[in-house]
C-alpha cells in the first residue's frame, strides 16, 4: 500500500519496523502536497524545510532508541495554532504578517512526541465560518467534489486529510468546526470535552466554546493523537487536571450493552432525507454490535443556534479587540489619529464575516441590550445543557447526523448568514454544554460523504472513540478515497 494512503497507526508500524524512514515518508507527502494542493488550497503555509529537518531528527532519535509516541509521523496544524517562527495567520489579512514568537501547548506536545509538521492549513477567518470561504487566502475545495466546500472552519485540515495529503491534522471546534468539515469530507473529526485539551496558543474565537481536536481517517488515529494532545496545562485556567486515559487501549472493547440515545428532534425537518437514512443505517450497525437504542429528547435543540450566535459573537467581539495594529498584525498606512488607526486597521484587516460577528457581539453586549440578548442566551444555554444532562441519565452516547446536508457548493450559502449558521445545528449543542463529540464517515449521498455524530458525557472520549472504532471495524466508508487523489 502506498505510504500516503496509510493511517497514522499503520505508518507508525512501518516506521517502527524500518520499512521506511520518516524522511522518506515526509518527502513523499511533501511531493504529494506539491502536486495536489493547487486543486484544494488546503494550505496557507507548507513548512517543507522544517519538516524534513524534524523528520531527520526523528529518524536519529529512533536509531538512538528515543522514539516518542508519534515519532516521525507527519501531521498538519490548522493555522489557528501558534507555531514559533512560522506564520500564524488564522486565515486573516490581519495576521498575514504575524510570525508567532511561541508555540501553542498542542503544538509543543505533538512536537515533543516526535510528530513532523508538514504545514499549516487553511481555514475560515478566525474560525468564523462553516465553509472555508471566509479565508483571506481563498476558499478550500472539497476533494470529493472540487466545486463543493469541505466545510469549516477546519476545512483545510479536513480536505488535506481526506485527500491523503497527511494522515492527521489538528483543528478547533467552537460550534462544529471540526466535526462538520469531517462529515463533509468523509474523515473522522473529534472535538474533546471542553477543558480536555489546552487552549493556550490557540487564537481565541469564543473562549467558553473553543476546543482543540483532531481530524484523521480512523478513530484509532484520533485516539492516538488525543492521547498526546490532552492533559492539564498550567497556562490555561480552563484546562482540567484529570488523568489522560490510554485512549488506544480500550478501543478493542465491545460496545455490547452500550446505550445509544437517538434524539427525536434530529430527524425532524431540516435534515436531508438521504443523509438521515445513512445515519439510521449507521445506528443500526451499532445495534448489531450489541448496543441498545433509546429515544431521547432535546427539547431546546432549535434554540442552540440562536443561543450560539449571541454567545460566540459576544466573546469574539472582545477577544478580537487586541487586533489594533499596534503590537502585531495589520496596521493601516498613514493614520491621521488614534481613532483612524484603530478603525482602519481593523476595518481593512478583518473580512466581512468577522466584522459582522464583532458587530453582532458588540450589539448584544451593549447598554440596553445585554439582558435581552446576552443574559437571555446564557440562561437558554443552561436549559440546553440541562437537556443533555437529563438525556445522559439514560444513555452513554447520543447518536445523530453531524450536518443537515452533504457538502454544499461553494458560493451557495455565503450570502445568507442564517442558512450558513444552521449548518451547525446538530453540533453546536455539544459546544454550549462543553461535551465531547465525534463525526465518523457513515456513507455517501450523491457521491458526497455523510457523517455520523456521536456526543458523549464530560470526559467520555474513551467511550466515543471505542464506539467509533467498533463501527469502523464493521464498515469501510473511511477507506474510500476521493477520485483524483487515489
Amino acid at each position, binding site marked *: 500500500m502506498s505510504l500516503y494512503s496509510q493511517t497514522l497507526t499503520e505508518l507508525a508500524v512501518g516506521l517502527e519496523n524500518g520499512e521506511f524512514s520518516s524522511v522518506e515518508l515526509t518527502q513523499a507527502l511533501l511531493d504529494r502536497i506539491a502536486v495536489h494542493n493547487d486543486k484544494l488550497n488546503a494550505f496557507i503555509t507548507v513548512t517543507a524545510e522544517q519538516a524534513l529537518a524534524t523528520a531527520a531528527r526523528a529518524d536519529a532519535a529512533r536509531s538512538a532508541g528515543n522514539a516518542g509516541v508519534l515519532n516521525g509521523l507527519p501531521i498538519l496544524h490548522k493555522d489557528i495554532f501558534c507555531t514559533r517562527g512560522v506564520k500564524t495567520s488564522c486565515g486573516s489579512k490581519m495576521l498575514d504578517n504575524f510570525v508567532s514568537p511561541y508555540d501553542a501547548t498542542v503544538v509543543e506536545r505533538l512536537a515533543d512526541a516526535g510528530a513532523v509538521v508538514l504545514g499549516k492549513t487553511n481555514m475560515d477567518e478566525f474560525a468564523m465560518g462553516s465553509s472555508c470561504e471566509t479565508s483571506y487566502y481563498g476558499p478550500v475545495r472539497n476533494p470529493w467534489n472540487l466545486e463543493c466546500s469541505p466545510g469549516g472552519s477546519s476545512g483545510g485540515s479536513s480536505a488535506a486529510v481526506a485527500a491523503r495529503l497527511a494522515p492527521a491534522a489538528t483543528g478547533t471546534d467552537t460550534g462544529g468546526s471540526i466535526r462538520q468539515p469531517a462529515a463533509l469530507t468523509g474523515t473522522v473529526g473529534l472535538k474533546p470535552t471542553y477543558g480536555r485539551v489546552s487552549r493556550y*496558543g490557540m487564537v481565541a474565537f469564543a473562549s467558553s466554546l473553543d476546543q482543540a481536536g483532531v481530524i484523521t481517517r480512523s478513530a484509532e488515529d484520533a485516539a492516538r493523537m488525543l492521547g498526546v494532545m490532552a492533559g492539564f496545562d*498550567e*497556562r490555561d485556567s480552563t484546562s482540567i487536571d484529570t488523568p489522560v486515559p490510554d485512549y488506544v487501549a480500550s478501543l478493542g472493547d465491545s460496545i455490547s450493552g452500550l446505550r445509544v440515545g437517538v434524539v427525536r428532534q434530529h430527524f425532524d425537518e431540516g435534515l436531508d432525507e438521504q443523509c438521515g437514512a445513512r445515519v439510521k443505517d449507521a445506528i443500526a450497525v451499532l445495534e448489531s454490535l450489541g448496543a441498545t437504542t433509546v429515544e431521547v429528547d432535546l427539547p431546546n435543540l432549535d434554540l442552540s443556534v440562536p443561543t450560539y450566535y449571541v454567545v460566540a459573537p459576544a466573546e469574539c*467581539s*472582545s477577544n478580537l479587540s487586541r487586533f*489594533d495594529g*499596534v503590537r*502585531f498584525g495589520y496596521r493601516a498606512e498613514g493614520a491621521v489619529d488614534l481613532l483612524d488607526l484603530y478603525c482602519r486597521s481593523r476595518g481593512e484587516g478583518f473580512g466581512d464575516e468577522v466584522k459582522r460577528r464583532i458587530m453582532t457581539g458588540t450589539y448584544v453586549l451593549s447598554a440596553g441590550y445585554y439582558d435581552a440578548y446576552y443574559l437571555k442566551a446564557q440562561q437558554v444555554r443552561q436549559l440546553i445543557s440541562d437537556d443533555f444532562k437529563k438525556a445522559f441519565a439514560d444513555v452513554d452516547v447520543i447518536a445523530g447526523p453531524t450536518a443537515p446536508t452533504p457538502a454544499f457548493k461553494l458560493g451557495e450559502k455565503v450570502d445568507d448568514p442564517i442558512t450558513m449558521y444552521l449548518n451547525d445545528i446538530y453540533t453546536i449543542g455539544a459546544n454550549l454544554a462543553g461535551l465531547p463529540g465525534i463525526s465518523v464517515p457513515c456513507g455517501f449521498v450523491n457521491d458526497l460523504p455523510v457523517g455520523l455524530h456521536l456526543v458523549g458525557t464530560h470526559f467520555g472520549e474513551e467511550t466515543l472513540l471505542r464506539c467509533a472504532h467498533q463501527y469502523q471495524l464493521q464498515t469501510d466508508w473511511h477507506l474510500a478515497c476521493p477520485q483524483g487523489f487515489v
Partner: protein
Amino acid sequence: MSVSAWEVVIGLEIHTQLATKSKIFSGASTAYGAEANTQACLVDLGYPGVLPVLNVEVIRMATLFGLAVNATIAPRSVFARKNYFYPDLPKGYQISQYELPIVEHGELFITDAEGKEKRIRITRAHLEEDAGKSIHEGLDGSSGIDLNRAGTPLLEIVSEPDLSSAKEAIAFMKKIHTIVRYLGISDGNMQEGSFRCDANVSVRPPGQEELGTRAELKNLNSFRFIEKAINFEVERQIELIEDGGKVAQETRLYDSDKNETRAMRSKEEANDYRYFPDPDLLPIEISAEFIAATRATLPELPDAKQQRFETDYELKSADAGILTASRATADYFEAVVAASDAKTQLAANWVIGELSAALNRDGLEIDNSKVAADALAGLLNRIHDNTISGKIAKQVFEAMWAGEGSADEIIAAQGLRQITDSAAIEAVVDKVIDANPGQAAEYRAGKDKLIGFFVGQVMKETQGQANPGQVNQILKDKLSK
C-alpha cells in the same frame, strides 16, 4: 458666596497596586522602573492565543484588606471584562470585577472637622489589572506605549459618598494608605503610582435628599493635589450652579500646574464598557477556612495600636497617632521601649523628634535608620541614669548617626560623662562665686534670676557635663549663705 451654603458630597475610588512579585495574570515582574516593555510578557502584551492565570497572592491580599475594614469576603466572585479601546490597554479590555467583587460592605472611621468619629462606608473593593503607560514627550507627533505596568494587580477600593469635605477625603485616604501598608499589601508609593485616587464630587443644597450631578476627578496622585483638586472642583460647581448653569456628569482631569480641573477629551465619547464575565477565568471561590487562616495573620491595625500606645505607654494621643502612622515606626518605637529603662514619653519624644529629623534630613526610611532601635535605647538609658544630660545626648546622637559607635563608646571617647560628684561641683561653684562677687551680692540682695547666670558659668567651666539639677541646688545653697 460662601461654600457653607452648600453641602459637599464626595466618594473616592482608590487604586492600590498590590505588592506581589509577579503580575496578577502572568509571571512577569512587577518591579518599578525597568526599561520600557522589558517586563511585558506575551500575556501582558495581549498576544493572540495567550491566557490569564490568577496569582494566589492577590486573593490573599484582597481578603486581608477586606477583613481589616470589617467587610464581607465573597465566597464566590467573578472576573469580568471591561471593553474599551486605548493604547495602554493591550487586549482592548481590562480584566476587572463588576457584578460580584471579592470584597463588599466594609467600613472605616475617620475624625471629622469637629473632632468626632465618623463612619465611612466602603462599598466594595475589587481586583483588576493595571494598564500600561503612554509617553508623550519627545516622540514627534507620536505617543509611545510602555506596557511594563500592564497587568500589575490593583485593588480598587470604592467608598460610599459619605465624605463631606476635601479634609475628610484626605483623612479617609490617609487611613486607607496606612492600612494597606500595615497589611503589607502595598508599598503605597504615590510618586510611583502605587496608590492613586479618583474622586466623585458633587454639591447640593443642605437638606436636599437627592445627590447633585457629580464630576469624576482623575489623576489625583498626591494628598496635596487631592485636597486642591476637590476644593477647586467644589468652588467651580457652586459658581456654575449659582450662575444658573448645570454641572455636567463628566470626567475631569486635575492639572497641578494650573491648579484647575478640565474635562478630558478622550472621555467625551459616552462609554459603553460592555462588561461580561471573562470566559478565560472561572469564578474565584474562597473557603471559610481560607478566610479564618487569613484572619489569623491580621496584624494589629492602626486604630487599635494607637489606643494601646496611649494606654500602655501613657503617651499623648497626638504622639501615639504619629508613632502608629506607619507600622515600621510603631515597631521601632516598641523596640526602643523594650530595650530601654527610660520613660516611654522620653522614647516617644526622641523617635518623633531627633530620629525623625535625622531620617528626613538624609531621606531615609525608618527601616534603614543609621541608629537602630537598640542603639537609641542605649542612649536613652544614659539620659535616664544621669550619665549624660539631654543636651549632651543630642551631641552623642549625632555622633552615633555619623557611625562613631554606640552611645557608651562615644560618651567614653569624648569624655562626656556627666559630673555628679557633689564635691567636684561644689569646687567649681565656689570658684565661680569667687570670680563674680558683684553678681553674688546682687543675687543675695534679691535679684533671683541671676541664678541662670551662675548656672551658665558653672556649665561653661564643666563643658556642660555637670548635672544641671545638682548645680542648681548647690548654687542656691552656697549663694544663700
